[in-house]
């Protein structure tokens, strides 16, 4: 038995919508198998993971809180990936954005002003963008592999933030825990509703999705991005510069990752500490692909991945399932998404090896 691929004449419209759902279904099946291997009832486990959190208002808030950074980062990654720039270091840009954005409320703790929040957000974006500029300029100037440099910068960013919250910015009254003082109220991103944890970062995510969607599908810049991504040679003939695109894509995605970072710091944690990320920068890669690199699709995908985080916590508490299962789930999901995307461009034929030899 062998698997043969046959190129379709044109990309299949049906499968480009269907493939994410197919991937989700396959992930659920694989998850069910995994839970039965762990000796848990698969139906109960899947219910706890993916349905129960939706029935509880507190969990729904938490899903929005976690979906916010995932969506913001993934939308930026979509611009990068579509243009053929592999920014794998969003995690670092997220951390540095959170740190730079926190500068004002940490250093001028008593300063209260309506200007503070906009400044924090702007500085967060600038911090993320600057950090993303490093791999971008190295790639466009020297041809350095951006995958490796952007990833190495993640490890460095983790160390920088770790140093800041344990060293110079540490709250002396923090009982020895690493972290800054909690911000005063004018440095805290307001909640969406009363008595809710969901903050205005979610609005940023939705606005960003619409803006980037518009840019990608309706403007010349969007056309340039896809031409350069699909065929750099054709892009050159059209007069587009791949080098400028590298810088543009990295700056955009760095700024959005930075915004995600400072929105999380200011809206959710309300101070800078050493637990800023649950690996959002990496999970956002899965979100970007599950959303098929479309900003609106990414909003939905971010919701699903956020659900898996919350469901994972619930399953850990109520069923004793390790929270590592969540990461296995997320990894499996990316596999199935990539596998199902094959269906968009190819027909898959399974032939028996006897007949196949013609």
């Amino acid at each position, binding site marked *: 038995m062998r698997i043969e691929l046959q190129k379709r004449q044109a990309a299949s419209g049906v499968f480009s919508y269907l493939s994410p759902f197919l991937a989700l279904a396959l992930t659920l099946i694989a998850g069910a198998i995994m839970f039965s291997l762990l000796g848990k009832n698969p139906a109960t486990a899947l219910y706890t993971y993916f349905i129960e959190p939706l029935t509880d208002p507190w969990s729904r808030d938490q899903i929005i809180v976690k979906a916010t950074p995932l969506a913001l980062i993934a939308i930026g990654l979509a611009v990068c990936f579509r243009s053929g720039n592999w920014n794998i270091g969003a995690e670092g840009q997220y951390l540095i954005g959170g740190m730079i954005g926190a500068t004002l409320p940490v250093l001028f703790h008593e300063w209260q002003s309506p200007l503070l929040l906009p400044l924090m957000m702007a500085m967060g974006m600038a911090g993320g963008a600057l950090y993303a500029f490093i791999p971008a300029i190295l790639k466009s100037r020297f*041809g350095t592999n951006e995958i490796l440099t952007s990833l190495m910068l993640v490890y460095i960013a983790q160390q920088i933030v770790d140093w800041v919250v344990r060293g110079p910015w540490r709250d002396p009254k923090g009982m020895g825990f690493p972290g800054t003082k909690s911000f005063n109220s004018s440095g805290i991103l307001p909640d969406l509703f009363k008595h809710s944890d969901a903050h205005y970062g979610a609005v940023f995510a939705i606005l960003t999705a619409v803006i980037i969607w518009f840019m990608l599908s309706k403007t010349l810049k969007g056309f340039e991005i896809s031409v350069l991504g699909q065929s750099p040679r054709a892009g050159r003939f059209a007069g587009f510069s791949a080098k400028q695109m590298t810088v543009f894509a990295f700056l955009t995605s760095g700024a959005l990752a930075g915004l995600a970072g400072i929105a999380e710091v200011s809206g959710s944690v309300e101070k800078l500490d050493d637990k800023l990320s649950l690996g959002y920068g990496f999970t956002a890669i899965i979100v970007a692909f599950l959303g098929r690199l479309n900003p609106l699709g990414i909003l939905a995908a971010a919701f699903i991945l956020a659900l898996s985080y919350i469901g994972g916590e619930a399953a850990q508490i109520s069923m004793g399932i390790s929270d590592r299962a969540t990461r296995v789930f997320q*990894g499996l999901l990316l*596999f199935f998404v990539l*596998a199902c995307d094959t269906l968009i461009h190819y027909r898959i034929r399974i032939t028996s090896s006897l007949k196949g030899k013609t």
Partner: protein
Amino acid sequence: MDVWVSIIISICAASTPLLLAATGELVVERSGVLNLGVEGMMVMGAVAGFSVAQLTGNPYLGALAAIVVGALFSLIFAFLTLTLVANQVASGLALTILGLGLSGMIGESFVGRPGIKMQPIDIPILSDLPVVGKLVFGQDLLFYSSIFIVVAVAYFLFKTRAGLMLRSVGDSHSSAHALGINVIKIRYLAVMFGGACAGLAGAHLSLVYVPQWVEGMTAGRGWIALALVVFASWRPWRLLIGAYLFGAVTIAQFHAQAIGVPIPAQFLTSLPYLATIVVLVLIARNRRLTMINTPAALGQPFVPDR
């Protein structure tokens, strides 16, 4: 004198996992496939090696299990990219994410358990020689394996027919296909070899270097191994230089932390990652060197026409 010997031995220990993983990846990339999943395969090897050593009490069985698990785990990537022609960059990342999660789950019950260390092989008399004794005749089996694998890969790639076939697949899969070479089969084998090497590299971490199971204990070494392949411009011998350079940087920053250099520990910990970036920039600036040696079909999908 003894201080220097022990420092050099610790550099060997820090370099061996990098060298093993990078040598495997070099073969993969020479066949035209870019597998970014080294970190994931390595951490799977580390957990497999540690748990099998715990269950059997034998670190050598652990290392064997790590090789098998690494190779099997890489098959997921191979199936995705070679059979289903999925994007290699994304599939490699998926392998890393899955490996980090899965190893965390498997290793959960082993956290904090004292490890079983693979003991150095002491060749009687010879290992008692001054200086060279301990360095050349008194190290663990995985150190010797790493050197042997580099030599074997260098020989295989440049002195054998099969090695020539593998390189031709990596430079132009369509020409190789036209000559009747089974491109997909060669790439499958190369990817599995890379997985086996990464697995063994992981076993070195959990059975020799640390020896314990700590979640995510690879700490970016898989990625550094990928950078080393670029640094070596796809030449096996240069991997030796690169891996030992990085091993030396790692040990140097450990010693600097230990003697209390007035620099925050976090900056010293960042050094190997920073060094990787610097090295990548220096290599990339030398266009000719990279152009000549980069496998021309690296990362490109191949669908045989029938």
